[in-house]
């Protein structure tokens, strides 16, 4: 008997030894990420720093009722259940949405997530009289939840939202709303600054260290409600590195494992050095918003001519080392909302000159000015790119004066539009996301979105566009919605209220040690998937 036991033990030991490396594979390591931001995003709930804040802090420490499925990169991510297990629109009253919450979910501090927590968090961003109201979080999230009118608890695990108009865009808005722990807020003395230092959400990661402007350390939340999404890396370390050459050097010296936006001219060198360069289409567009209130951009033919004059391939090949794709519309070809535009804006100076002639600018040179930034989030390489466009337009008789201003100043003008000292400016160059229909179309092309309400700085007033936007929003069948947005997009391509230039390809550089990384067609990324080989 003892002999059998002994043989059995030896056998078990051999099997365990043989399998150990296999079992150990697929997880572990500290993943160090060099971000483009100069500071760690706000950690109390709704992050700041735009989508980089959502990418590295928001979606890691917190959950929304629904989430993007970022586990693949072949197609656009879909919205899937998260803190809500299911949801439906009331068939009798399409203003009413019912969300059934997931049971058994706990915040990092151990307290329960339930309908009370949902309502408490909505009060945090909507009710100015609530003790937990946080102006900062309210300011960050407000433009993303415009359609939500009210919220109400129906029972411990059911909440109701009503909308200002029939809107199929509700899940696209709720995907941005994160839930902070009410119990933790009480525990830290009812103070959001203290909460930010010790955040508690329901997300796949917990924050264990935070040094402003230096680092944040996230460790897996082993009690995470979705067992399939328990992070594989032992630790994720976020390091702010706004300077591209610093990020590049840090990656090359092994101080970080992953950098955002490597300088385009360094990409061949990085590839040569065995680093992975990951590129993927995602909802980003680099356009010029034209001033349609006055000549020459009130003339559709001039706008089309400008779109035909841009050598987009030249920009992507010569300037950006293939880190962008040509933009011939708001969204890129193959996107469900691209539709069937009547024509494509290929580089065709001859056609552009012909259009200028038709517009009455035969032989006459046209002068205009573009407000541009010297740097900024999503702006890629603004100065050389603008100079390239300036050259392209000069060829067809449009002389552009580039007016470079600092990024923050430009964003304050995009809020105001073409008024005051910029009333006669021809265009503003600000890049945008088009993650969901509101961001892609409503805020830019609906007549109700002219500043100061939203970002229709062009003053693009087209009842047909309004009608299509409203129809898309009221379409609860996704196919119908996408088809309507396709029609709208085809119309926008033809109307050209923007000069479409390029879509960024979201370049990232990774050390060969990083495994399991999935690059989705998104601004966001699932950090539960990658791990670092020891």
């Amino acid at each position: 008997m003892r002999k059998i036991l002994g043989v059995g033990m030896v056998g078990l030991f051999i099997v365990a030894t043989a399998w150990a490396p296999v079992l150990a594979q697929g997880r572990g390591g500290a993943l160090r990420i060099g971000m483009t931001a100069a500071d760690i995003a706000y950690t109390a709930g709704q992050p700041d720093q735009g989508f980089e804040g959502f990418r590295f802090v928001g979606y890691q420490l917190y959950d929304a009722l629904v989430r993007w499925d970022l586990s693949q990169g072949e197609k656009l991510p879909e919205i899937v259940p998260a803190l809500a297990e299911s949801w439906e629109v009331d068939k009798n009253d399409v203003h009413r949405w019912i969300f059934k919450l997931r049971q058994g979910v706990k915040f990092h501090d151990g307290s329960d997530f339930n309908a009370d927590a949902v309502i408490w968090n909505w009060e945090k961003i909507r009710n100015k009289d609530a003790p937990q109201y946080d102006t900062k979080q309210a300011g960050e999230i407000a433009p993303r939840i415009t359609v939500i009118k009210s919220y109400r608890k129906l029972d411990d695990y059911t909440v109701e939202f009503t909308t200002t108009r029939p809107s199929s865009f509700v899940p696209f808005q709720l995907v941005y709303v994160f839930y902070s722990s009410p119990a933790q807020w009480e525990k830290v003395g009812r103070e959001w600054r203290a909460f930010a230092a010790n955040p508690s959400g329901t997300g796949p990661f917990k924050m264990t260290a935070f040094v402003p402007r230096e680092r944040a350390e996230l460790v897996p939340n082993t009690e995470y409600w979705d067992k399939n999404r328990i992070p594989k890396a032992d630790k994720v370390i976020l390091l702010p590195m706004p300077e591209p050459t610093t990020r590049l050097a840090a990656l090359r010296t092994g101080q970080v494992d992953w950098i955002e936006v490597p300088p385009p001219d360094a990409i061949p060198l990085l590839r040569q050095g065995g680093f992975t360069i990951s590129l993927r289409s995602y909802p980003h567009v680099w356009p010029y918003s034209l001033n349609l209130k006055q000549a020459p951009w009130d003339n559709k033919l001039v706008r089309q001519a400008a779109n035909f004059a841009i050598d987009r391939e030249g920009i992507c090949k010569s300037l950006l080392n293939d880190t962008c794709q040509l933009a011939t519309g708001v969204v890129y070809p193959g996107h469900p909302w691209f539709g069937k535009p009547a024509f494509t804006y290929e580089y065709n100076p001859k056609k552009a000159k012909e259009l200028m002639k038709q517009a009455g600018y035969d032989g006459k040179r046209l002068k205009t000015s573009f407000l541009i930034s010297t740097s900024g989030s999503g702006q890629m390489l603004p100065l050389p790119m603008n100079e390239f466009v300036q050259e392209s337009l000069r060829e067809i008789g449009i002389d552009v004066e580039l007016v470079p201003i600092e990024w923050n100043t430009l964003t304050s003008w995009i809020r105001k539009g073409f008024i005051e000292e910029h009333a006669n400016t021809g265009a503003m160059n600000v890049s945008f996301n088009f993650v969901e229909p509101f961001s892609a179309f409503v805020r830019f092309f609906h007549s109700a979105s002219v500043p100061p309400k939203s970002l229709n700085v062009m003053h693009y007033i087209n009842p047909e566009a309004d009608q299509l936007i409203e129809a898309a929003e009221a379409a609860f069948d996704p196919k119908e919605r996408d088809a309507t947005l396709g029609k709208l997009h085809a119309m926008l391509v033809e109307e050209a209220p923007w000069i479409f230039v390029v879509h960024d390809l979201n370049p990232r550089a990774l050390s060969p040690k990083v495994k399991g990384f999935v690059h989705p067609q998104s601004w966001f990324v699932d950090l539960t998937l990658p791990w670092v080989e020891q």
Partner: protein
Amino acid sequence: MWGYILRRLLFGIPTLLGVTIIVFSLLHLSPGDPVSAMVPADAPLELVQMIRQQMGLDQPLPVQYWRWLTRVVQGDLGNSLATRRPVLGEIRGALGNTFVLAISAAMVAFTLGVGLGTIAAFFQGRWLDKVASATAISGVSLPHYWVGIVLIIIFSVELNWLPAMGMQETQGQTSLLSLLRHMILPTIALSLIPMGVVARMVRTSILEILNQEFVLTLRAKGLWSRTITRHVMKNAAPPVLTLMGLQFGYLLGGSVLVETVFSWPGSGFLLNLAIFQRDIPMLQGVILILASFFVLLNLLVDILHSLIDPRIRRT
């Protein structure tokens, strides 16, 4: 002496007030809006107005300044508009990091500067003078952020001897040795300009003294060259000391570019971030603290002057 120090400290108060008024006015005259930097471009107007109101940014400028000043007098520099963290705490951390770098850069710069300047002066017109002067001019002329990048490429990327960025290991371990390794490259980059400036001043001052008649007299009396050198150095010291004080003040301000290139979380990095975020309380706070340092440094230099040069004490 104590009366002199007290008088100088009291004179510093209007200087600081003047600095804060100028900075406050410039910040509000420059384009851009702090609230625009805080919320997305399409945030509802009502909310933007509310935030502006809550932060007191809707008040007339003199009211805003007065509120800020009354808080400062009570030791409260307010909270950052961008991060909401207390300005004083943020500055304390950042300035501590810059202080470490400034001290090491000053030690390197002043030692090399005095050494090169002295050699250049005593060997005037000879090849040693030319080499020392060329080194000093290079230090002043080379953009230190460019030098920083070159140092990173050579010593971090190619040779892999030293880290390229940060103050500690990115994995999170901290140690004195690690800090020293991280300090080497930014220290070199940061020390170049003060080294050049000091070397040139030392050379000029020593040459000026060497040409004075008392040196000739000392030589004629047959004094040892070491003794003569001591006399020369002591006489050349005051202007050099003043310059060193100013240079150290600049180093304490933290070089925005060097700290950005090396991701060194110091006051320069903080200042840069605050400028882009239009974080007015942070900018005001950082500049007030730095201006106070300048006032104190100037005082310290003057005290040192009087210790070195008895003529100043008598006046």
